[in-house]
C-alpha cells in the first residue's frame, strides 16, 4: 500500500477552533428572523383516554398565535412501525407525551398559555415492566396495533404488547444442556438510563404557505431518515421537505428520530409561514425525548467440565416504552449477539420488545449490546467460578477467532478480540494481587486498619455488529484555488467525523488538511446518507468519501494530461500536485488544473456511493445471515475496584479499554472516543438510572438528581488501540463510536463480585445496592443478590 500521509496521524480536530471561541452555532442557539416560540403541554398520566381538551382560554391569551392539539395534526409516524402521533390522539401512553402546543410571540407567553389548557383524562391500567406488559391477559397499550403500517421484517408474535419478537435458532439447546457437565441459569436487569447530551433538544420548523414546502432546522443525527419519516407522515413528496443541520451538542443516539421535531412541524402549519422554535428544557428532555431500553434478561448455559460452552439459551425483554421508535431493531440487533462473542454449538434466543407506559426508548450508543453484555459477561464469570477456572482461560477456550462460524451463521474474519482480551487484562496486571499502589487507598498502614476495603478485578468482552446493509453517498469538490469541499451527510455529533472524513479526502487528493472543509449539512444539497448511527460512519462514509476523492483525483489527472503533454505516461498526485511519474518536475498544482480547464470559478466534482452489497437481512425464523454485518467491532475492558464494605461504595482504581478499530485513522480521536465511552459506561455501572416510580413518573429529571459522572468520579483510564484490519474498510478501518461503554458495567460488575464475593445482578451498582448485597451475604451466606424489578 502507498505510504499514508495524513490517515493514521493524531491530527487535532478541524472543528475545534470554532468551538473554543464560542462561534459554533448549535441547534439550541439558532435564531431565525421573525420566529415564533413554541411550548408543549405534556401528559401527566401514564395511560389514559383523553375525554376533553379546552384550549379556549389559551387562545385568548395576548401574544398567542396558535394553540393546537392532536386534532390539528392528524399524523402518525415511526421508523419501523407507524405508531406515534405528532401530538396525542384520543389517548396518552406515558407521562411526558406531548398533548397540545402553543406558538406565541415569546417563550414566556407560550408557557403561560400552555398552563391555561385544560385536559380531562380517564385513567387506564398501565404497565411499567416489559415482562409484565406481555403476560397473557395484559390489556393492549396500542389497541390498533394490527392496523399500523410496519416494515416487512417486523414479527410481533402472539403475546400482548410485543411489537417485535426476535428468534435465533441454532442447533438444539436441550440436547446441549443434556450433554453439559454444568447447567447454570440466571436473571439480570438493566434499568432505564438517558443519553443526557449536554445540549438539550430543540427544533425549528417553517411551512411555506404558497409552495407547501416544509423546512426543519434540527440537530438530528439522521436527517435523511427524518426527512423520509416526515414525508410519509404528511403524505408530502420528499422534494417538499428540507432538513438543515446546525451543530449538535452531543446525541449518543437520542437525537435521531422525531420527538420535538413533530411539535415544531405541527405548529408551523398554524403560523402563516412564520418559523417556530420549540426548545425542550432539561426536564422536558428527560421525560419527553428518548431513553435507553431497560432489559430483563434470562440466561441459561450448559458447559463442559473443561470450560467448553455447549449450549446457551437467552430470553430478553426489552422495554420499548410507549412507542416503538427503534425498539424492533434494538431488539433484533441487541438480542442477536447477546450470547456473547463465543463459539457455541446450540443457541436459542428470544428477544421481545414490549410496549410499556414509560418514556419512549430509542437508539442509545451501543444499541442493546451493553444490556446483553451485562448479563452474558457476568454469567461467564459465574461459570468460571463454578468450574474453578480463571475467567480469562474460560474466555480463551471459547472466544471468536478468525474463521469461526458464528452462531448466527456467518464466517468471521478480522477478529481482533483475543488481542483485546490479552492487552486489556495485562494492563491491570490480571492474575497478580492488587497491583494498585496502596498509597492511593490511604497508605499500606491505612489499609491494614481498614479491613472493610476489598479489592477486586474483573473484565468483559463484546462484539458489536453495525447496521447492514446501508448506503452512504459523498461528493468531493475541488476548486481553482486547490481547496477541497466534502459533501457528506454524516452528522458531526462530537464524535469527530468531520476530522476523520477531512483526513480521508486530504489523503486521497494529497493536500494538507487545512485545504479541506466540510460543507454544512442541508438535505437540499448533500447526497444521501443512511444515518450517523451504529458506528457506521468511518467505514461507510469513509469509503464513500475516499472513492469520491479518488473520482475527483482521476478527473483531475485526465484534465492535466494534455496540460502536461503526457501521452501514455503514467500520472500521479502528491503534495497537492499532479505530475508525471517518471518526471516529477513536470507538475501542476490541482487548483491550476481546475483553473486552466474550467476557469476561475470552475469546480471539479467527484462522486461515489458505498453500500456493503453482500450484507443480508437476518432470516426471520432462524435469525441467521451469512453476512449480517458489514464489520464487527471487538473490545475488552478490565477494571480494578475497591469496595468499602461498610458503605457499599465502589471506587474504580483503574480501568483499561482495548478496542479493535481495524485501523486508527486518527489515534487521538480514537483515544478520545474510548475515554468518553468509558466515562459513560462507568456512570451507567455505578449510579445512572432514570428512577421511574410505580405511577410512571420520572423522579429525577434533572442533572441534580440524575447523576452524570463528573471530573472527580473517574479513575485512571488506559485506552488501548488494537488494529486488526478490515479488508473492506477504508485503510482497514472498522468503527468505534459505540463499543466504548458496552463492556464497562459488566467488567466493573465482575470486579465487584471478585472483591466482595457476591454477584449483583441489577444495575446500577450504587452504594445502597452493594451494601445490602454484602449484608445479605453476611446474614444468609448467599452469594447472589437480585432485587425485584420495579
Amino acid at each position, binding site marked *: 500500500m502507498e505510504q499514508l500521509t495524513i490517515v493514521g496521524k493524531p491530527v487535532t480536530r478541524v472543528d475545534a477552533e470554532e*468551538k473554543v471561541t464560542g462561534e459554533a452555532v448549535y441547534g439550541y442557539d439558532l435564531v431565525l428572523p421573525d420566529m415564533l416560540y413554541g411550548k408543549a403541554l405534556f401528559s401527566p398520566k401514564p395511560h389514559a383516554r383523553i375525554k376533553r381538551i379546552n384550549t379556549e382560554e389559551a387562545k385568548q391569551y395576548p401574544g398567542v398565535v396558535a394553540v393546537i392539539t392532536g386534532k390539528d395534526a392528524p399524523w402518525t409516524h415511526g421508523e419501523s412501525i407507524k405508531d406515534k402521533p405528532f401530538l396525542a390522539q384520543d389517548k396518552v401512553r406515558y407521562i411526558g407525551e406531548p398533548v397540545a402546543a402553543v406558538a406565541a410571540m415569546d417563550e414566556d407567553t407560550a408557557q403561560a398559555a400552555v398552563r391555561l389548557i385544560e385536559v380531562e383524562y380517564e385513567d387506564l391500567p398501565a404497565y411499567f415492566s416489559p415482562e409484565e406488559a406481555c403476560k397473557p391477559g395484559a390489556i393492549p397499550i396500542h389497541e390498533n396495533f394490527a392496523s399500523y403500517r410496519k416494515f416487512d421484517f417486523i414479527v410481533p408474535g402472539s403475546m400482548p404488547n410485543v411489537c417485535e419478537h426476535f428468534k435465533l435458532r441454532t442447533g438444539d439447546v436441550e440436547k446441549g444442556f443434556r450433554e453439559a457437565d454444568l447447567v447454570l441459569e440466571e436473571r439480570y436487569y438493566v434499568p432505564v438510563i438517558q443519553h443526557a447530551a449536554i445540549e*438539550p433538544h430543540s427544533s425549528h420548523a417553517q411551512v411555506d404557505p404558497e409552495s407547501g414546502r416544509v423546512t426543519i432546522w434540527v440537530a438530528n443525527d439522521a436527517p435523511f431518515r427524518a426527512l423520509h419519516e416526515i414525508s410519509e407522515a404528511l403524505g408530502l413528496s420528499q422534494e417538499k421537505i428540507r432538513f438543515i443541520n446546525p451543530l449538535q451538542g452531543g446525541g449518543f443516539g437520542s437525537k435521531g428520530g422525531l420527538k420535538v421535531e413533530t411539535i415544531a412541524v405541527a405548529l408551523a402549519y398554524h403560523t402563516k409561514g412564520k418559523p417556530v422554535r420549540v426548545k425542550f428544557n432539561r426536564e422536558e428532555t428527560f421525560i419527553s425525548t428518548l431513553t435507553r431500553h431497560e432489559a430483563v434478561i434470562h440466561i441459561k448455559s450448559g458447559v463442559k467440565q473443561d470450560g467448553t460452552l455447549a449450549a446457551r439459551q437467552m430470553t430478553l425483554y426489552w422495554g420499548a416504552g410507549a412507542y416503538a421508535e427503534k425498539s424492533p431493531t434494538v431488539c433484533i440487533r441487541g438480542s442477536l449477539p447477546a450470547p456473547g462473542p463465543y463459539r457455541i454449538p446450540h443457541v436459542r434466543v428470544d428477544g421481545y420488545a414490549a410496549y410499556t407506559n414509560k418514556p419512549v426508548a430509542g437508539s442509545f450508543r451501543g444499541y442493546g449490546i451493553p444490556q446483553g453484555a451485562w448479563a452474558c459477561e457476568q454469567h461467564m464469570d459465574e461459570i468460571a467460578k463454578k468450574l474453578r477456572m480463571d475467567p480469562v482461560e474460560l474466555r480463551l477456550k471459547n472466544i471468536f477467532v478468525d474463521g469461526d462460524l458464528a452462531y448466527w451463521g456467518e464466517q468471521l474474519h478480522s477478529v481482533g478480540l483475543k488481542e483485546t482480551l490479552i492487552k486489556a487484562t495485562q494492563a491491570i496486571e490480571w492474575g497478580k494481587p492488587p497491583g494498585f499502589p496502596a498509597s492511593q487507598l490511604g497508605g499500606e498502614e491505612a489499609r491494614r486498619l481498614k479491613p472493610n476495603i476489598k479489592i477486586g478485578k474483573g473484565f468483559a468482552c463484546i462484539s458489536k455488529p453495525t447496521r447492514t446493509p446501508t448506503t452512504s453517498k459523498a461528493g468531493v469538490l475541488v476548486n481553482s484555488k486547490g481547496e477541497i469541499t466534502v459533501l457528506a451527510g454524516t452528522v458531526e455529533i462530537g464524535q469527530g467525523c468531520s476530522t476523520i472524513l477531512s483526513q480521508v479526502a486530504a489523503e486521497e487528493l494529497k493536500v494538507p488538511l487545512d485545504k479541506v472543509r466540510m460543507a454544512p449539512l442541508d438535505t437540499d444539497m448533500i447526497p444521501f446518507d443512511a444515518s450517523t448511527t451504529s458506528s457506521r460512519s468511518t467505514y461507510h462514509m469513509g469509503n464513500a468519501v475516499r472513492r469520491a476523492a479518488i473520482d475527483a483525483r482521476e478527473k483531475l489527472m485526465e484534465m492535466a494530461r494534455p496540460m502536461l503533454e503526457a501521452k501514455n505516461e503514467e500520472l500521479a498526485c502528491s503534495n497537492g500536485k499532479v505530475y508525471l511519474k517518471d518526471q516529477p518536475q513536470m507538475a501542476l498544482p490541482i487548483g491550476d488544473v481546475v483553473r486552466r480547464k474550467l476557469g476561475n470559478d470552475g469546480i471539479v466534482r467527484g462522486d461515489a456511493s458505498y453500500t456493503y452489497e453482500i450484507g443480508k437481512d437476518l432470516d426471520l425464523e432462524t435469525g441467521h445471515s451469512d453476512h449480517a454485518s458489514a464489520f464487527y467491532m471487538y473490545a475488552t475492558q478490565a477494571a480494578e475496584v475497591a469496595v468499602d464494605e461498610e458503605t457499599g461504595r465502589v471506587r474504580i482504581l483503574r480501568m483499561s479499554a482495548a478496542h479493535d478499530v481495524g485501523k486508527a485513522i486518527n489515534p487521538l480521536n480514537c483515544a478520545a472516543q474510548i475515554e468518553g465511552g468509558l466515562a459513560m459506561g462507568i456512570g451507567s455501572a455505578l449510579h445512572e438510572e432514570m428512577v421511574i416510580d410505580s405511577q410512571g413518573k420520572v423522579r429525577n429529571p434533572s442533572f441534580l438528581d440524575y447523576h452524570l459522572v463528573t*471530573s472527580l468520579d473517574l479513575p485512571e483510564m488506559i485506552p488501548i488501540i488494537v488494529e486488526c484490519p478490515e479488508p473492506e474498510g477504508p485503510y482497514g478501518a472498522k468503527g468505534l463510536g459505540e463499543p466504548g461503554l458496552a463492556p464497562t458495567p459488566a467488567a466493573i460488575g465482575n470486579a465487584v463480585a471478585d472483591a466482595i464475593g457476591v454477584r449483583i445482578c441489577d444495575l446500577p451498582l450504587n452504594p445502597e445496592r452493594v451494601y445490602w448485597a454484602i449484608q445479605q451475604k453476611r446474614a444468609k451466606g448467599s452469594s447472589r443478590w437480585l432485587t425485584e424489578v420495579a
Partner: protein
Amino acid sequence: MMMKIRITLNGKSISLEVPAHRLLLDLLRDEIGLTGTKEGCGTGDCGACTVFLNGKPVNSCLILSGELDGAEIVTIEGLKIGPELHPIQKAFIQDGGVQCGYCTSGMLMMSKALLDENLNPTEEEIRFALSGNLCRCTGYAKIVQAVQDAAAELRRMRAEG
C-alpha cells in the same frame, strides 16, 4: 418589571433595558445575541453557562438581570487575547479536550478562573475546580491534560514577562 442597566460586557460598556427577572444567560443569548455561553440545564447543575461576573465565575442561569447594574461580565467571546487564542483555548484544541464542544465554553471559563488564582494546580485541584462542569463526551482526561498544559504555558509566558 423593566429595568435600565449599564454593564461592561467583554470590555465594552453597554446600556440595556431588560425585564428584571430575565436570567443573565437569556440576556446574553437571546437579547444580546452572544450564544457562545451555553444552556445545558438552566438550573445551576451543569456549568455550561459559566461566565465571569466581576472577576468570579458564576452560573449565568442563576443570575437575574436586575442585579447586574454596574457589573462587569466576560463571556467566552471575550476570552481571546486580542486576535490570539488564549493559551487555554489552544491547549483544549491541541490535547483533544473538545468533542461536541457544548460544554467547552463553560469548561474554558472555569479553567481560566482556576488558573487566574493558581498557576500551578495539581491534577486533584483541576478535577475539583471542574467538578461542577458536566461533559458527556470526553471522560475529562483530555480536558484535565489541557488545563495542565495551559498552566505550563501561562507560567512560561509569565516568566518571560
